């Protein structure tokens, strides 16, 4: 019989994992709100460990730029608290709405899936902002790693390992993470119909103007934006975001306009439109449909050559380093073709497909043998009986 366990404290989690790890070993699907169930291989677990009852912000010190929250705390609650103090999660966790049509999401889920948004090249991803955690391993042992301070080289950095482990190593019960002040002002320089979008993106990214987002939307994708300047462009749109103190933003936007003007016509978005456009890019809402969706992390110069080989519709983030590709559904999700197009390394993740396709096609980039074996040994060190989200990665 399948059971749902809903722990309310760390001790409950410990008891549940000891139970699952002993005697007749039981498999657990670990989840918060289940908002990212579409990511990774579908789970067919006997039992569910539902962490949504493990909720609440336990420490928030705005002047220290640090927060600690229980794993099941709704991410919306965290963002509301940060809004009140004019701070933010600088790595811009995406909303699962555009990808999976689901609302919600928890602190544990955001860090366990290491989500990250357009600000990645400037400030890093979830893993760069995670400072420490408490957890229960698949062995049924409580442990912690890291701390609540930014600079910390005390022992192995298990925190990085937990970020993005999709609940396959241990069950986090709380997470400490870095927060950052919100920018005073944000603007977006738009470039219409860029003659060489790859070069234009890299020119902006590699400028000294500290851009916090560089994306390129082909015309068909731009046409679906809710921002009229973008949807009405009638051309591809390259977007460059600038954030910071008011006078600085003014000067940097001006410099970027000059820098990018040789590539095409220029427009500028103010604060509200900037927020809307970058939410769309972050949440991949241009591809909020039923198509299969790939996410490719590549060297920025490789992007244009990669898309030239692939079917479907795409757009670029991270100045070309991140490529979102929507393709019509097939049984194989064109996995060999997509992964075969990676020129100089990189990885491709199948972000959206039906359960049966995700069961057949490796969702995450297959690793080289040595690395795959090493990951297997690492995982066995945390969860030797394979009770936590087995097969999800």
């Amino acid at each position, binding site marked *: 019989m399948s059971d749902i*366990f809903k722990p309310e404290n760390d001790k409950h989690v410990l008891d549940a994992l000891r139970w699952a790890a002993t005697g007749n070993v039981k498999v657990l699907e670990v989840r918060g709100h289940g908002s990212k169930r579409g990511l990774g291989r579908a789970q067919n677990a006997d039992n569910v460990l539902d962490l949504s009852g493990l909720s609440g912000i336990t420490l928030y010190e705005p002047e220290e730029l640090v927060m600690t929250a229980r794993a099941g705390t709704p991410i919306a609650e965290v963002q509301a608290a940060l809004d009140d103090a004019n701070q933010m999660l600088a790595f811009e966790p995406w909303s699962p709405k555009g990808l999976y049509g689901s609302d919600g999401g928890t602190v544990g889920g955001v860090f366990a899936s290491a989500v990250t948004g357009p600000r990645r090249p400037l400030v890093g991803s979830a893993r760069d902002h995670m400072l420490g955690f408490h957890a229960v391993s698949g062995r049924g042992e409580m442990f912690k790693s890291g701390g609540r301070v930014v600079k910390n080289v005390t022992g192995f950095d298990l925190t990085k390992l937990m*970020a993005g482990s999709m609940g396959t190593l241990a069950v986090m019960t709380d997470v400490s993470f870095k927060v950052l002040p919100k920018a005073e002002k944000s603007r977006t320089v738009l470039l219409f119909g860029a003659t060489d979008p790859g070069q234009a993106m890299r020119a902006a990214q590699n*400028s000294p103007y500290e851009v916090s987002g560089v994306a390129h939307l082909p015309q068909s994708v731009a046409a679906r934006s809710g921002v009229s300047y973008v949807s009405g462009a009638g051309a591809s749109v390259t977007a460059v975001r600038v954030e910071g103190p008011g006078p600085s933003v003014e000067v940097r936007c001006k410099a970027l306009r000059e820098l990018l003007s040789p590539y095409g016509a220029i427009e500028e978005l103010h604060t509200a439109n900037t927020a809307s456009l970058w939410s769309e890019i972050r949440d991949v809402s241009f591809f909020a449909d039923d198509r299969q969706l790939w996410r490719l992390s590549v060297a920025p110069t490789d992007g244009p050559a990669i898309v030239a080989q692939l079917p479907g519709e795409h757009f670029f983030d991270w100045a070309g380093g991140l490529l979102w590709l929507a393709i019509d559904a097939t049984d194989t999700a064109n996995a060999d073709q997509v992964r075969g197009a990676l020129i100089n390394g990189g990885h491709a993740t199948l972000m959206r497909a039906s359960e049966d396709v995700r069961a057949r096609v490796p969702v995450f980039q297959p690793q080289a043998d040595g690395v795959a074996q090493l990951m297997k040994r690492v995982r066995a060190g945390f969860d030797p009986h394979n009770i936590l989200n087995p097969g999800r990665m």
Partner: protein
Amino acid sequence: MKMPIPDAGTIAKRAEIIQRLRAIVPGEGVIVDENELRTFECDGLMAYKQLPMVVVLPETTEQVAQILKTCHELGVKIVPRGAGTGLSGGALPLADAVTVGLGKFKTILDIDYENRCVVVQPGVTNRAITDAVEDAGFYYAPDPSSKIACTIGGNIAENAGGMHCLKYGLTTNNVLGVEMVLMDGEVIRLGGKHMDAGGLDLLGAVTGSEGLLGIITEVTVRILKQPDTAKALLVGFPSVEAGGACVAKIIGAGIIPGAMEMMDKMAIGAMQKFVDSGYPLDVESLLVVELDGPEAEVVYLTERVREIAESVGSSFLRVSANEAERQQFWKGRMSAFPSVGRISPDYLTMDGTIPRHRLPEVLTRMNELSAKYGLRVANVFHAGDGNLHPLILFDANIAGDLDKAESFGHDILKLCVEVGGVLSGEHGIGVEKRDLMGEMFTEDDMKQQLRLKCAFDAGGLLNPGKVYPTLHRCAELGKMHVKDGNLPFPDIPRF
């Protein structure tokens, strides 16, 4: 401090080991002469010395792989070593181990401006990376004080920091990929020129692992465009509390300076005596705040920081009028260690991190400890991220002074943990703080960390005796913690 007891069987095999190593690295790449070995007997933590059994200086990844494979077969321990500038004894040799020096891995392999990254061998110094790209207006952001000498491989082993960490991150935030050799000789690659590596973040786990997980043979780091302008403010306060309040208010106002360094009265005096940096001597604490970015931003933020400083009662404030003056402001802080060396025969450099707002309390308690041990302490710290560097002044010629200084240092680190901080911000644990790990971690915490070690190095041959106070065999760590068989759990809500 105890190190693992040297294995007599290994020492008895020394001649065979040397012969095997010479077959891999010919000529002068294998060092066996006692006088030559002495060069390698310690790293930057000179209080502990030990002659290595043998030193080998490979030049290729293949040689590193062969060395590790051979040592793995023979059950011989390995101590990896970069430039030897580490301050916690992470590269301290063992009497029954082969020290593998990466000093010959000095080539910059690829500078890729378009993708904003540089691929280098691990023996390239931190500073040399910036030197190689600065003509094109780029730089490598992490900047440990030893950046002229320390190598990027060592930076990764220690997750080295520096003054720019608050804004630009630590080494771990700036490394994109590595090639590394595992203890059994297998060569693996993690990451690359792309931003996210996929799968478990082994690269994140390897960074800061102090040479316990493998030997890095190639590194890809990201580089950043140099900011247009940088300006420094020198701000003095009549109390440590006012200095601390200023730091909190700057960050609370949403300003993240490129660097923000603080020093106490004793450190200010020592530095100003050593080099004229324009430091005021009539203040209790002094901040150097650097703002970088486009000129308009720097001008705007300078005024805001000035207003904040005045609002918390600063008694001295100067803004650098030009680049020469900015450099002058930094001169004192950059010479912190030699400055203190002038006012005391010996000193111990400590390294812990605390939540910033606990600073006044920690300094007060540090002064109490200073009185208790009868030893002076000067403080410089990375105020922006709470990383303290208390310098404990002592005289090694006075019997018992070194022991007192070490006990004082340990009490400071325990205090850091007590207030919510950690044992090390950037120097690592090594042998120096190894026996304090229990202050921060439970037995289960450390067991879980050691299981990671086992996944990389099941025989425990890589840098044993460092970081973790107890050597476990991996089999012991594998034991399940089972309580009474199948546990009931009646208090968990079920649906």
